[in-house]
């Protein structure tokens, strides 16, 4: 006999439940977790290094690196005397909450104030996967072009802030900063945009202060 069964169950139930567990743990330990989304080569790691430089005197920071392969990024972080855990997904194009749970087991959360999560370089897939973070931030670099918000609306919409990196290269690329900001504002009117150069340090202070305010708020 045909029977109707209501389920009302999230498809990403398993990931989302683990993400909530992560979230509760981070809140208990007063650790602010930032999920950083961006294309490969946009400057995620460089921005993380610049952020560490700006905030390490005030906060104890650790980094979780997500890549398909290699420990190139985590080695760069460790070279600065900061704890870094490297996740190799082996092919998965985004981090999921169970990977974060395992990575966090290796860290001493009692000693930490801020965890920077460098997601796998990808403007699409990480968007829909909750990791238990406090906030998502996306980095767009000038060489990628000012039309990316039109092409990848999702990542701009889920981010609480947008970092525009490599502003020192603007003279070389045909990047219309006003058009870019308009596109972002259409999709996400509340997200501040921070133009920076992670390598020269320009603009990093304003970005770091935005983050610092939020980290202080969970202490």
């Amino acid at each position, binding site marked *: *006999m*045909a*029977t*109707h*069964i*209501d*389920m*009302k*169950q*999230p*498809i*990403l*139930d*398993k990931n989302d439940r683990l993400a909530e567990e992560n979230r509760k743990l981070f809140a208990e330990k007063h650790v602010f977790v930032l999920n950083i989304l961006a294309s490969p080569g946009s400057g995620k790691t460089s921005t993380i290094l610049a952020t560490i430089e700006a905030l390490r005197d005030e906060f104890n920071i650790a980094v979780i690196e997500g890549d398909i392969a290699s420990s190139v990024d985590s080695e760069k972080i460790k070279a600065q005397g900061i704890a870094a855990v490297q996740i190799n997904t082996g092919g998965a194009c985004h981090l999921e909450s169970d990977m974060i749970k395992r990575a966090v087991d290796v860290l001493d959360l009692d000693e930490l104030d801020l965890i920077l999560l460098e997601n796998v370089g990808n403007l*699409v*897939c990480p*968007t*829909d996967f909750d990791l238990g973070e406090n906030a998502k931030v996306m980095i767009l670099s000038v060489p990628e072009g000012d039309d990316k918000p039109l092409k990848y*609306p*999702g990542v701009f*919409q889920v981010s609480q802030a947008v970092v525009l990196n490599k502003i020192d290269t603007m003279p070389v690329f045909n990047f219309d900063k006003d058009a870019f900001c308009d596109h972002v*504002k*259409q*999709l*996400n*009117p*509340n997200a501040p945009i921070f133009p920076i150069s992670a390598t020269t340090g320009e603009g990093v202070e304003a970005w770091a202060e935005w983050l610092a305010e939020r980290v202080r708020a969970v202490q």
Partner: protein
Amino acid sequence: MHELGLMTGVLDAVTQSAVEAGATKVLKVTLSVGEMTEAIEDCLTFAYEALTEENTLFSGSELEIHMVKPRSRCLDCGLEFDHDRFHVTCPQCGSPATQLIAGRDLRIDSIEVDIPDDADPAPAKGAPAAECA
């Protein structure tokens, strides 16, 4: 966006519910998918067909997908409005302070399953079995 992975999760969850209910066949699976997620309807359907091809529990079953339009509530003037993913400010007061109330869904709403009717009661002891015509 990983429709194959998403659909594997759907089939696992549906199989569990169906088996718990004592079903021998799944007739229909109904999903809600928000237009603001990265999941694509055609790819979900394709993934469902590919994954259920050799699965007898699902053979002949139907997948119904409700695409959920984005809907937001303005936190300033209270208006609830439908929109597309590119236009999120309040059409009434222009405020950017809006809260998304639908459009990012990724949900199994319900299933239709076939649960075998109870078997005919066994004849009372000692009574002759009915003769075949």
